[in-house]
């Protein structure tokens, strides 16, 4: 029993370091760092490079990677990204960190090379020493994690409680504006916090690498557990986050004394532990009315915060060219161009175009739930995955016509979306994002990759409709579906329901006092978005003729969302363009550029999302706005020059008079 307790404490210690780092950066900067795993991987990879590839000693490698590289790296990230996130909406902050998490790993691999083996040493010398404590065994890596947490706690508490720097950090947490007025530089303090946070991420990464492996997926598991601890601690309570993280490690490990680790129950229970913690905590907080948006800073910070919220929610100005409404003409031309592609491209490229269009359908669900509903849901990809599974079940196992299956099966996913909508309706934006992300991870682990559907990764076969067996015909079928659902989204946006959603998004109190039901509005858009996501998943299964269970990881969905937001959260055409870019760019790089540049598209997607920090409205809305502003300036100049010029007719009249 003691062995399990000690192993649980070791795991919990790593969770605790990660959770502590997330809490400190969140309360000091208002940014919930979804790139934590990528930053942990980066520092751990540098440690590996020094210790294994260049054969530096453990102390030298750890000292350089944690005390030199990590703080510099954190400072650089602050200068390039995090400082621009101040005052941005939750979705922009989240997506910018998603972009970082997408771009960092391939950048590191470009710089340091891709590892073929992911086993990595920790901070203990190899071969690992084993200690016996009251009959239980503890290895040196586990001891290193206890020591790591102890050092972090002692140094952290000491610095925060007893030093001038700690006082300034605590002041910044309470109010950046007042800190600034008292002569301290909040930017410099924030930079320091990010430097320390990166060091903690690196420490967690190095400590988890021997058990989870030196790859981003392993670090992501760590991050998901830390998220749950942070949400359970209401994002701000550092001691509680650390306590819950330790408890989570124990609850994950200790039951393994009684259950078979490879058994079905353990396979379902172990990955569910973070979700269970989060769920219990949220129910408790919801009952006590403590799940609203978390406010960072003090009254003065809120008073001087610029109004406007998320600029992506404000419609772009209408563009006209003469009598032509470009808002109508450009989408028609764009769809026309896409429709021409299967005519001019070969089978391979037409297949990629079909994939891009289908992805565009799935992205329409993000347009609905995030662009229209203003809710940051990170589990749309899971709905798509479940939709794919159900289409496989109906079309292949039960012999339905695939087209009927793809229309009917998503109806079964809608109640799940409605349930999540109802459960998260009173939660603040960040809570909604983290809860839906965790729910997506749970669905991926418990449902989508379940043995019955997984089939060793190849999934279930799904046939295409008989009239769309060829890639070109299927591309047209997908494009027709995209146009139909694009028009439905447009209809929603311009309808009473769309206006009500816009009202709820900007002021729930204002909306409720004119008779709008917030619950009805959000459930409506949740249901529609869930249906569209599941339908898109079904189309994707038909496209690949397989349910492809490994394609629906929630972190891949965050990349999709990041690409969409880069182009514009509310633009229907942005969904189609984002889908096509996501599908075609890797093909273009793989075909026409050197193999080592194969990851560049992923880096570009990540950089695009990072750019949201500077241009939250997205590329399409930004371009439309720039054109409209430029034309407005020209008109003003023209009218001024006309006003300045002499008016001959008037002069003539005057002369005659």
């Amino acid at each position, binding site marked *: 029993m003691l062995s399990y307790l000690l192993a649980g404490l070791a795991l919990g210690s790593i969770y605790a370091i990660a959770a502590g780092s997330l809490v400190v950066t969140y309360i000091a900067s208002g940014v919930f760092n979804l790139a934590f795993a990528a930053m942990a991987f980066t520092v751990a990879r540098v440690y590996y490079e020094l210790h294994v590839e260049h054969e530096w000693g453990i102390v030298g490698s750890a000292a350089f990677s944690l005390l030199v590289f990590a703080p510099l790296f954190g400072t650089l990230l602050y200068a390039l990204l995090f400082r621009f996130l101040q005052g941005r909406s939750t979705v922009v902050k989240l997506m910018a960190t998603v972009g970082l998490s997408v771009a960092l790993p391939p950048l590191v691999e470009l710089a340091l090379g891709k590892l073929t083996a992911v086993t990595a040493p920790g901070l203990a010398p190899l071969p690992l020493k084993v200690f016996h404590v009251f009959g239980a065994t503890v290895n040196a890596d586990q001891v290193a994690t206890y020591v790591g947490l102890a050092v972090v706690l002692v140094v952290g508490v000491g610095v925060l409680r007893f030093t001038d720097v700690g006082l300034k950090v605590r002041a910044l947490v309470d109010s950046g504006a007042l800190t600034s007025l008292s002569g301290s530089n909040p930017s410099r303090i924030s930079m320091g916090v990010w430097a320390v946070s990166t060091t903690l991420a690196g420490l967690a990464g190095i400590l988890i690498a021997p058990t989870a492996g030196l790859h981003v997926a392993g670090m992501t598991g760590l991050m998901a557990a830390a998220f749950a601890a942070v949400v359970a601690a209401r994002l701000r309570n550092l001691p509680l986050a650390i306590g819950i993280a330790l408890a989570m490690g124990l609850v994950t490990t200790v039951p393994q004394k009684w259950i078979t680790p490879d058994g079905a129950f353990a396979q379902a229970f172990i990955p569910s532990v973070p979700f269970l913690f989060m769920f219990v905590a949220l129910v408790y907080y919801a009952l006590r009315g403590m799940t609203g948006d978390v406010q960072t800073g003090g009254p003065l910070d809120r008073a001087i915060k610029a*109004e*406007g*919220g998320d600029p992506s*929610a*404000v*419609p772009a100005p209408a563009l006209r060219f003469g009598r032509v409404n470009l808002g109508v003409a450009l989408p028609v031309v764009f769809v026309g161009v896409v429709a021409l592609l299967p005519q001019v491209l070969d089978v391979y490229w037409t297949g990629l175009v079909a994939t891009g269009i289908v992805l565009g359908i799935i992205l329409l669900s993000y347009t609905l739930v995030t662009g229209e509903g203003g809710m940051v849901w990170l589990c749309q990809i899971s709905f798509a995955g479940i939709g794919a599974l159900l289409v496989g079940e109906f079309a292949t196992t039960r012999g339905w016509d695939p087209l009927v299956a793809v229309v009917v099966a998503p109806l079964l996913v809608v109640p799940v979306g409605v349930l999540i909508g109802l459960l998260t309706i009173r939660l603040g934006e960040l809570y909604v994002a983290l809860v839906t992300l965790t729910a997506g991870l749970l669905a991926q682990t418990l449902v989508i990759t379940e043995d019955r559907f997984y089939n060793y990764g190849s999934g279930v076969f799904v046939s295409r409709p008989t009239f769309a067996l060829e890639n070109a015909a299927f591309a047209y079928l997908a494009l027709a579906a995209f146009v139909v659902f694009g*028009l439905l989204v*447009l*209809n*929603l*946006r*311009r*309808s*009473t*329901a*769309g*206006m*009500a959603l*816009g*009202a709820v*998004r*900007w*002021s729930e*109190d*204002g*909306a*409720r*006092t*004119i*008779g*709008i*039901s*917030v619950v*009805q*509005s959000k459930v*409506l858009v949740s249901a529609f978005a869930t249906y569209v996501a599941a339908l898109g998943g079904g189309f994707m299964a038909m496209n690949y003729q397989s349910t492809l269970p490994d394609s629906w990881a929630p972190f891949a969905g965050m990349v999709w969302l990041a690409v969409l937001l880069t182009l514009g959260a509310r633009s229907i055409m942005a969904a189609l363009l984002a889908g096509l870019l996501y599908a075609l760019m890797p093909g273009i790089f793989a075909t026409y550029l050197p193999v080592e540049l194969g990851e560049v598209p992923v880096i570009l997607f990540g950089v695009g999302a990072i750019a949201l920090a500077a241009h939250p409205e997205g590329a399409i809305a930004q371009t439309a706005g720039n054109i409209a502003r430029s034309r407005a300036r020209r008109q003003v100049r023209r009218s001024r020059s006309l006003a300045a010029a002499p008016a001959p007719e008037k002069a003539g009249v005057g002369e005659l008079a």
Partner: protein
Amino acid sequence: MTGKHAQSEEPRLEARGVTMRFGGLVALSEVDLAVPAGQIVGLVGPNGAGKSTLFGVLSGLLRPSAGRVRMLGADVTAAPPQLRARRGLARTFQHPELFASLTVREHVALAHRMRHHRRRILTDLFDGRGLLGRADRDETEHVDALVEELSLTEVQHQPVLGLPLGTSRLVEVARALATDPLVMLMDEPSSGLDVTETEALAATMRKVVAERGVSLLLVEHDVPLVLGLCDTVHVLDFGQKIAAGTPEEIRNDPAVRAAYLGEDVDDLPSGGELVAPGGELA
């Protein structure tokens, strides 16, 4: 009263023994208040007196710790704001709560639909009205009239983001009136407005009461405006109602003088002086 809403024995809105506690803080303590038909009722008090909390309770945004809220005699204490809105309660906010992605006209149209054509929130999705943009004649006439009445014609197609504060307050009033309310709660409507804008707003309020028969409950720091405009005034101090009566009674109430108005009370102008005659919006 000449408005279109019928007079009734029951107050249109009534608070009985309303108490509101936030942890150990008692923000309101057994407050009684009634808003009769076709009257303007003022609610004044120093900062922290509990005025905005009482507004929150009356409009349904806050659930009182004790006491009841009634509309036309019906208990609405547990009813959420949207149900009270459907019963005829509208409100404006101290900091205008507008919807930045909607135009001025859309604010008014949406509020009108929520009161008179609620089913459109679902039916629009199936009959394609959003795409086809078919306008409802009754709605168009109603919205046109309100927009014109509140002098919002020039800005009716503009998004509300970036409108001046005075115009934003008028948009809120138009939005509230579009729900054809029986009672309208106005939270510090003159806050941030200059003298001319305040006079214009006061004229609008009088017109709303005179022509539409709407009852107004007004929270306001501008004491001359309240005393000049209201039929009845209630005074809150530290969460307790310390006085209620006509403006003249309030002016002469020693408790009010001591707790709130102070020595300046004698210098206050008599009722109506700040209001433009005729009730037209300047």
